[in-house]
């Protein structure tokens, strides 16, 4: 394994998830597609935290629980975004982010 450590391997996988998520976030035009991309990025973050906790002398338990918090935040965020998407689709009839231009109270 020419000089690449286990930690680096996992970090590169999570970096790949971050890149895919950013790519999808900019490329997607519907809100659901953007939501899926955000989930990819959050997964990358969780993988990175657990890898850092498990493979270095840092506290493994704290690393694992930090990832658990990331998952909880992701669940809360998805519940809110689901409600927002439903409101947007009721009001505009579509969820294409390009055409959501009016802001009314």
């Amino acid at each position, binding site marked *: 394994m020419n000089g690449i450590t286990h930690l680096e391997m996992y970090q590169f996988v999570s970096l790949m998830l971050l890149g895919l998520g950013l790519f999808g976030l900019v490329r997607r035009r519907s809100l659901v597609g953007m939501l899926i991309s955000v989930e*990819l990025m959050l997964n990358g973050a969780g993988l990175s935290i657990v890898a850092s906790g498990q493979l270095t002398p840092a506290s493994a338990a704290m690393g694992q629980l930090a990832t658990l918090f990331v998952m909880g935040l992701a669940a809360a965020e998805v519940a809110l975004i689901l409600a927002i998407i439903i409101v947007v689709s009721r009001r505009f009839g579509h969820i294409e982010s390009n055409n959501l231009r009016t802001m009314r109270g």
Partner: protein
Amino acid sequence: MEHLAYVAFGIYTLIILTGGLMAVLCRSMVRALVGLILTLFGVAGCYLLMAAPFIALMQILIYVGAVSILILFAIMLTRAPAGAEEAPYIFPWRSLAALAVAFLPLAVIGGMIRSGQVAPLVPPEEVPLAELGQTLIEPYLLAFELISVILTVAMAGAVILGFERRIGK
């Protein structure tokens, strides 16, 4: 045994890559969601490989069990046109811009990972559940309480947003 771990890691990485590409490239939202679920399973496999079975279980329980179902509801409830497909891309500008946006942080962080001073590595060890619980209520007590507040607020907010139309009338 060592080689078996590398093989498993390669398979999981392949699953994650395939699922991630499906999630960002498929025009059908349902297929993109299937790609996301594939990625979630791949990441759960990585957690297992790092001797963190509890987190792997939570990943499947929370992400595959709850988050992806919520996204499926979002797809269903928006009454998108058949198959929930995005309109085809006429100009590739958007994809090019997306590539540029994704490449910059990849290059910067990737370079940092390769050049940075890495802490001495230890072989991963499984943390007993009791210790996880102890950590949750000792150093992480505030975060633990805050996340329950956040979950409650998010749930209440989602319900209020959902009822918004009826209140307005």
